[in-house]
C-alpha cells in the first residue's frame, strides 16, 4: 500500500465517515421504508451506488493501492459500533463492495503520470513530494470498479442466507424456485432470465455510479482549486 501521509489518512477517515454517515442515516430510513425481504434489492442498490460514488471520489483524492479498501474498513467499523440493531449483512456488504472496487481499479491497470501536473504551491493538490509519481485513473477504471461493486448486490442475499442459515436454506431456495416456476406455468429458464435482468440493472447502476464518482471528483477538485486560489 506504500507510505501514506497524515493528509492521506485524514482523507481516508473523512470519506469513510461520509460513507458511514450515509449508511447510518439513509440506511436506517430505507430499511424502514422497504419490506424485509425486498430490502436487499432496493436498499442495497441505493446504498451500494452512493457508497461506490463516495469511495471512488475518495480514491481520486488519495490515489494509491488499498485506499478504497481502507475507506470500506473505516465505514464497516463505524457501522459495527453504531447503536441499534445487529448489522452483519451491511458490514459484509461494505467490505465486499470495497474489496471489489479495489479489484476493479487494479484490473484496469495503473496509469502513472508524473507529479509535475500538480499545481504550483497548491497545498490541497500537492499530495506527494516533488519527483514522486502519482496515480491517475481513466474514467473506465471508475466504471469498472462501480460495476464490480454493484454486482455484489445480487448474490449478497444468497451468501448471507447461506452464512446465517446454513446449506439447507439454499436447497430450499432452489426447490422453491423450481416449484414456483411450475406453479406459475413458467419455464425454469425464466428464473435465470429474471436473475440476468437484475444483474443488468446492477451493472448499469454500477457503471453510472462509477462515472458519477469520476465527474464528482473532478468538480470538487476544480472548486477546491478555486477556493484555495482565493485564499492564497
Amino acid at each position, binding site marked *: 500500500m506504500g*507510505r*501514506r*501521509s*497524515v*493528509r*492521506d*489518512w*485524514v*482523507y*481516508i*477517515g*473523512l470519506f*469513510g*465517515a*461520509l460513507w*458511514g*454517515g450515509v449508511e*447510518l*442515516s439513509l440506511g436506517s430510513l430505507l*430499511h424502514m421504508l422497504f419490506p*424485509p*425481504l425486498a430490502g436487499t434489492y432496493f436498499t442495497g442498490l441505493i446504498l451500494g451506488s452512493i457508497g461506490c460514488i463516495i469511495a471512488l*471520489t475518495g480514491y481520486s*483524492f488519495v490515489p494509491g493501492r488499498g485506499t478504497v479498501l*481502507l475507506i470500506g*474498513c*473505516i465505514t464497516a*467499523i*463505524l457501522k*459495527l*459500533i453504531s447503536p441499534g*440493531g*445487529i448489522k*452483519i449483512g451491511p458490514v459484509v456488504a461494505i467490505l465486499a463492495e470495497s474489496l471489489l472496487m479495489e479489484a476493479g481499479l487494479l484490473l484496469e491497470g495503473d496509469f502513472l503520470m508524473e507529479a509535475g501536473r500538480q499545481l504550483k504551491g497548491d*497545498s*490541497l493538490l500537492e499530495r506527494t513530494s516533488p519527483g514522486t509519481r502519482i496515480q491517475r485513473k481513466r474514467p473506465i477504471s471508475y466504471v469498472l470498479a462501480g460495476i464490480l461493486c454493484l454486482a455484489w448486490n445480487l448474490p449478497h442475499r444468497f451468501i448471507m442466507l447461506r*452464512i*446465517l*442459515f*446454513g446449506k*439447507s*436454506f439454499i*436447497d*430450499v*431456495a432452489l*426447490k*422453491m424456485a423450481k*416449484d414456483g416456476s411450475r406453479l406459475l406455468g413458467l419455464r425454469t429458464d425464466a428464473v435465470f432470465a429474471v436473475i440476468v435482468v437484475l444483474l443488468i440493472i446492477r451493472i448499469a447502476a454500477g457503471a453510472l455510479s462509477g462515472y458519477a464518482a469520476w465527474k*464528482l471528483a473532478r*468538480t*470538487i477538485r476544480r*472548486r*477546491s482549486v478555486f*477556493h484555495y486560489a482565493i485564499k492564497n
Partner: protein
Amino acid sequence: MQLKINPVRTAIVAGTVLIVLSVILKGRYLFVLSIVLFAVMLLFRRPELRMFFRIRFWVFILLPVLTGVFFIGERNLHIAAVRVSSEGIFEGIQMSGRALCLLFSFSIVLSKITTGKIIGFFERYGLKGMGLALGVASNTLATIAQNSSSVYHTLRLRGGFRKRPIKSFSLFVVAVISSSIRHADDIVHAAIVRGFDTDIS
C-alpha cells in the same frame, strides 16, 4: 504479575469461537448454545433484546421454519388441514437457531468494543494511520451532519429542490463534500503543526 486483558483481542477471539460453535453445532447442542447466549444477553445486553419486538426480526427468524415445513422432506404431518413435513420443522428450527446464535454472538462481542479501544488496538499493532483515520471518521460524523443540514437549508431557502431537483441534489453533494474536505484540511494542518506523524509510534 498482573494479567492485562486486551478487550478488542478478547472480543475477536471470543467472537470467532462463538461464530464457529454456532456454525458447527447441531441439534440439541445448538439449542443449548442458543439458551446460554440468550441468558448472557438477558444478563448483560438487555437493551439489545428489543429486537424481539420488531416485525423484521420475526420475519427473518420464522422464514426458514415456514419454508422448511413445505419444502424439506416428505409432508407427513397434518396440522389444521395443512400437510407439513416433520423433518422440515426440525430443519427449519435448526436453521433459525443457528441464525439466532450468530446474531447473539455478534451482539455480545460488539458490546465490549468502543471506538477508543479499536484505535488503541490499531496503534498497539503499528497501524497508527488507521487509528488516526478511525478517530477522524468518528469525530467528523457530527460535523458532516451539521454541514449537510446547513447546505440543505441554504439550497432550500433559495428555491432549490423545487425547480431543478437533480441539479440541486448534485450541488448539495458537491457542497457537502467540499466543506468536509476543507474541514479535513484544518485537521491535517492542526496535526502537522503538532508534529504528528503516522510513522512515529
